[in-house]
């Protein structure tokens, strides 16, 4: 009955759809995007986590703006939180306490906001690492790398401006550090500090100013950058991992509707739900414990939010007595050096795609991702960068490491200072070697197959381990990469070898001197010949290589294969079933 009704008259939804289509042409949009293909891999969800955390930030942040008052006027606290009754504090801090203790669900929302901020920067950072290590930043995605990089920086900016709003002791100290750093900037430092704080530190302006940045400028920039980021993903179509059937001129995966609408849409709720669960059960930033900002007290063992840690660590690791008094002015190298190092680090991260492209000279579009091992030097550079960041980050906890492990603070700090230089080099070397070894292992597997763990004694007494060739899909995955060769510095049209050419040649040598080339079909065929010989001795008929098998044997093996396949119902018909088939076939002959 219902069917008949709908056949006659368009239903409710159909009518709305028609309404929309006649006004904005949604059918065309749906036709274009509805069945767009997205590749599937867990690591592609990292960026999604970041995006969804941002949505959660918008939702929870909007709630908080309804209650938070960004004013620094002094008031006497007379709320429900006993320990602070009668204390002088700013309105900003008081309204934060009120949100926590007097608004139903207020503390929950504050915690949702703080946890999702931490998750936003974390997942954006992991997403960047995924993009880096798989070479997804290569042409045509260099601009999108830069946009994503800016998103990460804006995430830190949003985090810091938000962290400073409650005007509690910790956030005030964070601002004090910022003030001290700004003052250390040559020539303009003291002026900039005065402009920022509206006079002397702490002043009465900073919270309201950061609030404008935090709820308008920063989120607006993030939204714009995010829109550009996603727009470019649509233009380029998502990358896919290297594997059979995946090419630079196709995209393999599942359609947007319905699979990705359900998966990605559902994933938003999962991310939100997990943030909610954490926020309901774990306290974050209990500002009531610290009291309002006062320039005099500070508690030991204070830490910034995690994403600021590396900058704080950079400040801590600066050696003593760096300040210079050149020409009668203060050159605060103890502040400038960490600042410069951090900015250079960020710059290198942001500009890396262009650097690598200059070295490789690769002008092609890449849509198939690299396996990290197949770009050993890039992977090693990434590992060195991660290590550098991690040491700076650990540097922000020198005092906690020292007190928790009962070590001398001085020793811990000196160790960190040395580590900052030594560990990235170690990480580079170890990662590069590991990647090359993995490549060799891949090559080995492609040529000789997987180790089965079966040891067989040959007639002449030699023991060998039986290797089993991988299937054609796995074989393609193991061999489908390009190797790059270092180039020599070549003379230009005038016959001169420029400094630039020399530098490029040196870098190209650095990148590609050590390399492993993928196994070719010719090499594989040759090595299989050798294998078959071994196997013929091992167990005469047990040849598993489909390519060279005589037809008769193949058919003999087949029924056995089907038998086992039906027993283990999950296994698909062909490839995996070969293994038991071969075993069964062996005693037959």
């Amino acid at each position, binding site marked *: 009955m219902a069917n008949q009704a709908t056949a006659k008259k368009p239903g409710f939804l159909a009518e709305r759809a028609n309404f929309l289509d006649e006004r904005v042409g949604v059918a065309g949009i749906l036709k274009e995007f509805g069945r*767009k293909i997205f590749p599937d891999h867990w690591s592609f969800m990292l960026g999604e986590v970041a995006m969804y955390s941002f949505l959660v930030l918008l939702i929870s942040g909007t709630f908080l703006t309804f209650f938070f008052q960004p004013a620094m006027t002094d008031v006497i606290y007379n709320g429900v939180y006993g320990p602070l009754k009668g204390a002088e504090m700013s309105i900003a801090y008081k309204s934060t306490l009120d949100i926590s203790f007097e608004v139903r669900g207020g*503390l929950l929302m504050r915690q949702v906001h703080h946890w999702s901020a931490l998750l936003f920067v974390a997942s954006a950072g992991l997403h960047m690492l995924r993009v880096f290590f798989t070479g997804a930043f290569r042409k045509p995605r260099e601009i999108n790398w830069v946009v994503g990089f800016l998103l990460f920086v804006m995430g830190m900016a949003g985090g810091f401006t938000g962290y400073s709003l409650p005007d509690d002791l910790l956030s005030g100290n964070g601002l004090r550090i910022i*003030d001290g750093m700004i003052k250390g900037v040559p020539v303009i430092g003291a002026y900039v*500090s005065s402009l920022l704080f509206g006079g002397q530190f702490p002043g009465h302006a900073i919270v309201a100013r950061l609030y404008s940045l935090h709820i308008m400028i920063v989120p607006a920039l993030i939204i714009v950058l995010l829109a550009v980021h996603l727009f470019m993903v649509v233009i380029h179509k998502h990358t896919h991992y290297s594997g059979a059937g995946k090419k630079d001129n196709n995209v393999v995966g*599942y359609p947007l509707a319905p699979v990705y609408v359900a998966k990605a849409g559902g994933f938003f709720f999962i991310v*939100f739900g997990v943030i909610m669960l954490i926020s309901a059960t774990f306290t974050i930033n209990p500002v009531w414990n610290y009291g309002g900002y006062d320039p005099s007290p500070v508690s030991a063992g204070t830490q910034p939010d995690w994403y600021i840690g590396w900058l704080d660590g950079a400040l801590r690791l600066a050696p003593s007595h760096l300040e210079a008094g050149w020409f009668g002015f203060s050159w605060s190298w103890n502040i400038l050096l960490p600042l410069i190092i951090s900015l250079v680090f960020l710059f290198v991260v942001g500009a890396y795609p262009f650097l690598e492209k200059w070295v490789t000279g690769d002008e092609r579009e890449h849509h198939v991702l690299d396996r990290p091992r197949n770009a050993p030097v890039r992977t090693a550079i990434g590992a060195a960068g991660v290590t550098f960041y991690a040491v700076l980050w650990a540097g922000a906890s020198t005092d906690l490491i020292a007190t928790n492990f009962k070590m001398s*603070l001085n020793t811990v700090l000196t160790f960190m200072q040395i580590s900052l230089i030594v560990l990235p080099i170690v990480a580079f070397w170890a990662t590069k070697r590991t990647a090359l070894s993995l490549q060799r292992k891949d090559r080995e597997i492609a040529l000789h197959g997987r180790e089965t763990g079966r040891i067989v004694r040959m007639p002449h007494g030699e023991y060998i381990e039986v290797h089993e060739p991988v299937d054609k899909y796995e074989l393609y995955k193991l061999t489908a990469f390009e190797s*790059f060769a270092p180039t020599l510095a070549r003379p230009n049209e005038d016959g001169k070898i420029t400094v630039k050419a020399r530098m490029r040649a040196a870098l190209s040598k650095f990148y590609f001197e050590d390399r492993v080339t993928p196994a070719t079909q010719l090499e594989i065929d040759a090595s299989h010949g050798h294998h078959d010989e071994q196997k013929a001795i091992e167990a005469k008929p047990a040849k598993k290589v489909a390519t060279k098998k005589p037809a008769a044997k193949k058919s003999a093996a087949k029924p056995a294969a089907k038998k086992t396949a039906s027993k283990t119902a999950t296994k698909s018909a062909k490839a995996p079933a070969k293994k038991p088939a071969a075993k069964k076939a062996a005693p037959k002959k």
Partner: protein
Amino acid sequence: MSEKAKEHRYESGLAVVQSGKVSDPGIEPHRVRMTDKSEKLERTANRQVAALFIASAVGSAFSIFAYFAFPITSDLGTVRSNTLWLGFGITLGLLGIGIGAVHWAKTLMPDAEVYEPRHQSRSSEENRAAAIEIIKLADQESGFTRRKLIRRSLYTALAMFPLPAIFFFGGLGPNPADTLRHTMWRKGTRLAKDPYGTPIKASEVTEGSVFHVIPEGLQDLTDTKLEEKAKAAVLLVRVDPSVLKPIAGRENWSYDGIVAYSKICTHVGCPVALYEQQTHHLLCPCHQSTFDLTDGCKVLFGPASRPLPQLPITVDAEGYLIAQSDFHEPVGPSFWDRSAN
């Protein structure tokens, strides 16, 4: 196979285009799922998805119930139960939808990989030519290249127009002038306890004790209290006079082993609040700069460069500790023309 692949091509940069690569076998065949094979399992999955969605609805309803059932009262424990139960309800509401939708997609929607073509980002030659044509036409019609005067005056105008903003932003704060050079301390200002402002007698300060000090009268300030405190905070310690190694010219800046140093770190301005009694070291908890109290607070360790400024003190007729003068140098973090004057 016999012909050697060219080692270098312009397009591929340094990539070696290998001959005889393993050929691409195409997308791996689809592995059939249990729910595709067994109707029973399909029905189970169907029920699971629905159960998750229903659980979600129950969770959302529960959070509304929790909103009323666990109100916040003057008892702080209610904050915890309010947060917890509201949060649990919403969590169930969210996770039910999320896990349900993903489970639906993974068990009941098609999971065979499909592909579609991908095009180069570069526009077709036709479009590129057309774009160039448009730019040329626009240039010709406007005379942008031809009319140098217009073009250059436009550049000038565009370069000038944001400049007023810089001056507008100048109003964000005053010229710091010499505010960074002076604190509230004057000759005769009594040293008072932080935060209540009670003056300190020299006799109260026993050996090894530490006082967090503010200038007397700071508490009476209204608008600039924190600004003045951020500069004037002092740490007062009494040590055995024999361990003090006063710097030449500062012999009488201490009183009977009582010394007063600025509490504001010379690194980036955190309060140097930790005193180690045995070693007479002062430690900044922010970045661990360590100062030797007995030796003019010189830097022993950490990123700071300069000693903490010393406040010259003495006692007045009533035995209260007083400042002899302001600090003799700017306190706190360094700034560009700090050493001027």
